[in-house]
């Protein structure tokens, strides 16, 4: 998917702005003709957790002084309900009714892209800085370092999956915005911002909780922490050279994990959590209190209550599984994500942003209600590392796979639901293929990244 868009990427700044504005205009055109596209009902785009139509229903329930969670329609956050809810009811004369909400999505997408760009700039600077400090400045002369931040922002803006999500009338763009915001805050090492993004993102969709590890690493180590061994190696080699002072500087900079921003981060996390919980509590005081909210939002996500088909793999599995094994498998599937957190964190601790990408990709694979918006997010994060992943294998194969699956999935759904000539297995097959491609993507990108690190180590060793 992303590759398709990358060809649109410009080198020069005017080009970037031209294409960014073009993407916004394209979205505006699309949100004006939603009837023909009918994306809001596609299972690939809106999930029970993110659908704005459900949010409108929940808001309508609160208007008639009922709990928004009555009738298992709405499963999102009460805060989102009170912010976006009025927009779903408000109608500009002569315009489609969902225009305001869609505008929010467009704005959220644009801000996300800008934040990705800022993050990318920071990351690329750190990368170049590190190469220079390791004495690999020559690498710039013979190979070109692409402006990966522009590429990533344009990948996010022009990725068909992002566009579909943005037009598809759901809350994913807003959730993605907060995830990116927390990463950005951590990258520029502003603890309150990072904490705010992290708390809100976790509050909205639960899974970004695990981003706490990359965020802490970012805050503690900075965007691109070089493994200490490299410096030591370099220092040994260059012991007599003039650049010694700089290396020592680098080392001292590198030496300790700075706990101050991390501590600040935790303080702010506490404050923001308390704040949002109080707000939720006020909202929910007439509808069964805050425990009801936890039950209907996180409980709904964790116990996989809605088994309507989506592009993930869990719905099919839990539709088949015997009732008395259900709890066991629920635990197995959720622990699956948790198991991967620690090993990945250890292996990729020097690249926290990349770690965040891997976490997001894994979550979107194992989530109960995934949508294409999740992949839109991690593909943009992946594009931040375009320079590092230059020698990634299977890129063409993955591209073909993503294109094929995203075209085949609606066809299979149609065959099953509307024509009646297929069955659930048809659709589930595309879900499995999608999961497989995601796995290959993660495996290949991680191995490419590690290879790149190895290469740098080798270079440092030889110079």
């Amino acid at each position, binding site marked *: 998917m992303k590759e398709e868009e990358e060809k649109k990427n410009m080198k020069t700044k005017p*080009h970037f702005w031209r294409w960014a504005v073009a993407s916004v205009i394209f979205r505006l055109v699309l949100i004006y003709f939603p009837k*023909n596209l009918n994306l809001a009902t596609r299972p690939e785009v809106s999930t029970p957790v993110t659908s704005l139509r459900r949010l409108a229903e929940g808001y309508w329930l609160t208007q008639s002084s009922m709990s928004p969670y009555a009738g298992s329609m709405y499963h999102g956050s009460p805060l989102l309900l009170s912010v976006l809810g009025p927009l779903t009811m408000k109608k500009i004369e002569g315009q489609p009714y969902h225009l305001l909400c869609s505008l929010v999505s467009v704005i959220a997408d644009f801000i996300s892209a800008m934040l990705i760009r800022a993050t990318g700039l920071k990351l690329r600077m750190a990368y170049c800085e590190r190469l220079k400090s390791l004495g690999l400045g020559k690498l710039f002369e013979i190979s*070109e370092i692409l402006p990966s931040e522009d590429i990533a922002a344009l990948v996010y803006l022009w990725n068909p999956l992002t566009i579909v999500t943005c037009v598809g009338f759901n809350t994913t763009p807003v959730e993605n915005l907060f995830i990116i915001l927390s990463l950005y805050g951590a990258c520029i090492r502003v603890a309150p911002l990072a904490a705010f993004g992290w708390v809100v993102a976790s509050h909205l969709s639960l899974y970004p909780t695990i981003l706490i590890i990359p965020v802490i690493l970012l805050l503690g180590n900075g965007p691109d922490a070089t493994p200490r061994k490299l410096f030591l190696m370099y220092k040994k080699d260059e012991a007599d050279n003039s650049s010694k002072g700089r290396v020592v500087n680098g080392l001292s900079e590198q030496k300790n994990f700075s706990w101050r921003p991390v501590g600040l981060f935790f303080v702010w996390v506490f404050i923001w959590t308390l704040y949002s919980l109080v707000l939720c509590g006020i909202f929910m005081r007439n509808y069964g209190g805050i425990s009801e909210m936890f039950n209907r939002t996180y409980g709904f996500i964790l116990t996989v209550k809605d088994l309507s088909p989506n592009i993930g793999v869990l719905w099919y599995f839990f539709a088949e599984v015997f009732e008395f094994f259900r709890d066991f498998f629920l635990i197995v599937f959720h622990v699956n994500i948790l198991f991967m957190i620690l090993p990945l964190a250890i292996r990729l601790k020097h690249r926290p942003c990349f770690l965040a990408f891997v976490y997001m990709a894994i979550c979107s694979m194992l989530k109960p209600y995934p949508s294409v918006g999740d992949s839109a997010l991690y593909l943009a994060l992946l594009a931040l590392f375009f320079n590092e992943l230059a020698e990634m294998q299977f*890129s063409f194969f993955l591209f073909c796979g993503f294109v094929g699956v995203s075209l*085949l999935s609606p066809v299979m759904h149609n065959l099953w639901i509307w024509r009646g*000539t297929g069955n659930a297995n048809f659709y589930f097959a595309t879900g499995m293929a999608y999961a497989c491609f995601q796995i290959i993507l993660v495996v290949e990108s991680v191995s490419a990244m590690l290879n790149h690190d190895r290469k740098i180590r080798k270079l440092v060793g030889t110079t």
Partner: protein
Amino acid sequence: METMADAEPAKAKPRPIIRLGLFLISHSFIVSVACCAAGIFALLLLPILAKNTYISENALMPGSASPMLSNDDVSRARMFVNKVVSFDFKTDSSSIGIQDLVAQHITDLGGEVNFHRFLPQVNKFNPLHFFSSPDQGIAQENYTCSSYGINTVGFIRAPRGDGKEAIVLVTPYNSVKTSMGEALSLGIAYSIFSLLTRVTWLAKDIIWLAADSQHGEYAAVAAWLREYHTPSFDGSGRSLFESNASPTTGRKRPNDFLRAGTMAAALVIKVTDGSEKAERDVLNLYAEASNGQMPNLDLINVVNYLAVNGQRLRVKVEKLGSLLDSWWLRSLAELFHKLGTVARSLNPQWNFGISVAEYIEGSATLASSLYNQALGVPTGPHGVFRDYQVDSITMEISAKRVANYKNRPNELLLQGGRLVEGVIRSVNNLLEKFHQSFFLYLLTSPNKFVSVGVYMIPFALLVAPLPMVAASLFTDSTRRISGMGTKVASSPASSDIPAISFRSWRWLHAAKTVFIVHFWGAVVTLLPHFLSLVQDSSPLTNLLSWIILSAFTLLILQAILGSSFSLLHMNRTQGMEWTLLKSVTIAAACTGLCIMSVINFATAELGALMLVPMCLMTRPLMLDAKAKTLKSFIRAACNVVLIFLVFPPVAYYLWKGALVGLENARVGDFWNWVESLWTWNSATYIYMCMVHLPCWVLCVHTLLYPC
């Protein structure tokens, strides 16, 4: 494709599966030729591999009860037919319509009746129709049309049913001028209806839809079904149907729309004037719905079984007439026949021989079946039902007795009536909707079919070389480029640091080209829509303006998107780029064909027959010209001929020429054909514009690639 990762020579021994993949890729030429040949051969084998049909749903029990339709019902129906025939349309049309006559008879029999007024709707192209549910909220704008159609719908409530299921009988007739055949089909339905109002075994409601076909049979049935499933409302929230004032008859008409639960099956009954020669009456079956969908095979089986065994009719499905006396098919049939005899003489157990006539008939039917499914245009009003997941079939009784109906009136009504009664009785037994038998099949005769498991094989064989050749070209070019890359990188002697090279992303250039061309395909798809909005001109001018506009857009897109940016300015390896381009083209063609095979298999099969050889063969002419050998000359000639043949208009005219003779084909015909495809929302149209045409353009591009 998964093996396209360059096997690094350093690795001593990759795993066996990877070695197998590498072996296939390195011998991709031989393998692809073998696969294509095998695919075409397997396609020709299909009539031999066809199996006899069987009724797989036990509940159907066709023919287990003796027919109850008596001469009494039939003579009553005869009187009804006489009334319809003698109905004076000229004088009576203002006071009492023929609909009232039908309605009166239904009420007299004790059924409920209800009229459905509809406005004929022009078929509109909706490119996303395939992905949406049928007819969601189509706004009815066309109020200017003066003449309504009025369907008459009769209901029998089943004494043993709960009113949740129904069987539909459809008899299309022209309310302005009813022909003898239409009157007879009304008569058959009437005789059934009069019987079914009395029987006790009925468990599903019966709906008799006397569809007013003055605006076309399909439109009438489609309008009624749309109202049945998705009632449309006007601005004030009232149903459009109800808001219509009752027609100008003095009598009060029941005005609310009656319904009877989900439909288990629908039968469209037609009577036509058959040829005098046939010694028996013929029952023609039409089953193809939109986009190559078929009703469940069990429905065809039941009708076929009852018609052959119960009523002694000859059942026919459509055949491609021109194939019946083609010499090559005959010689092929003889060859297969000889092979079969030889095989049987070797081992009596090998019983795959097939007689020459049978093979020819089978392939003619198969070709027609493939063609009709590939067109994606329904062959009759039964097609609408499939859009609502109702299995339906058109039974056209082609009777030699229609002409001399006056002499022996009862026979036809009795025969047709008993057949329909038997089918209804079978469907009445069903506990669930049809699901046991096949939905995806091709017919080679009314009682022989090729199921999806068999007919996928030729397609799979045809398409299998595509990913392989794509992978082989891809690895080839990356290897060559990387070879060059290292050379270039090592040339600046200043360092021995290997540069960061975007070697594995090099295909992005080719992908960009392919993307632009496919995007252009989407534009081409939408152009006829605008053309039809703008003007009302002859097909020829439309076709020409379409072609010119398409070429123009291609140039513009090339100018805007093609040149303005390029991602990786690195040492271009001139001359290698075309292999990457071809590889990406082939991958795109493969994806397109595979997706199309899920949407409409027949289109994909016919498309693969054309696309696969072209995509595999294509190679820059300059390279061949430089080589100056006989082989390269032949290859270049083949390429040019293939490219010429596969261009959609040329392919269409050739096909047309094969069917009716080239002298009858006019230039504008292609436009008419395309227009019929897109007004019927056929996926074939989208396939043609968004897969076939872009691949053709890309192949031309590769062919003309400067080397």
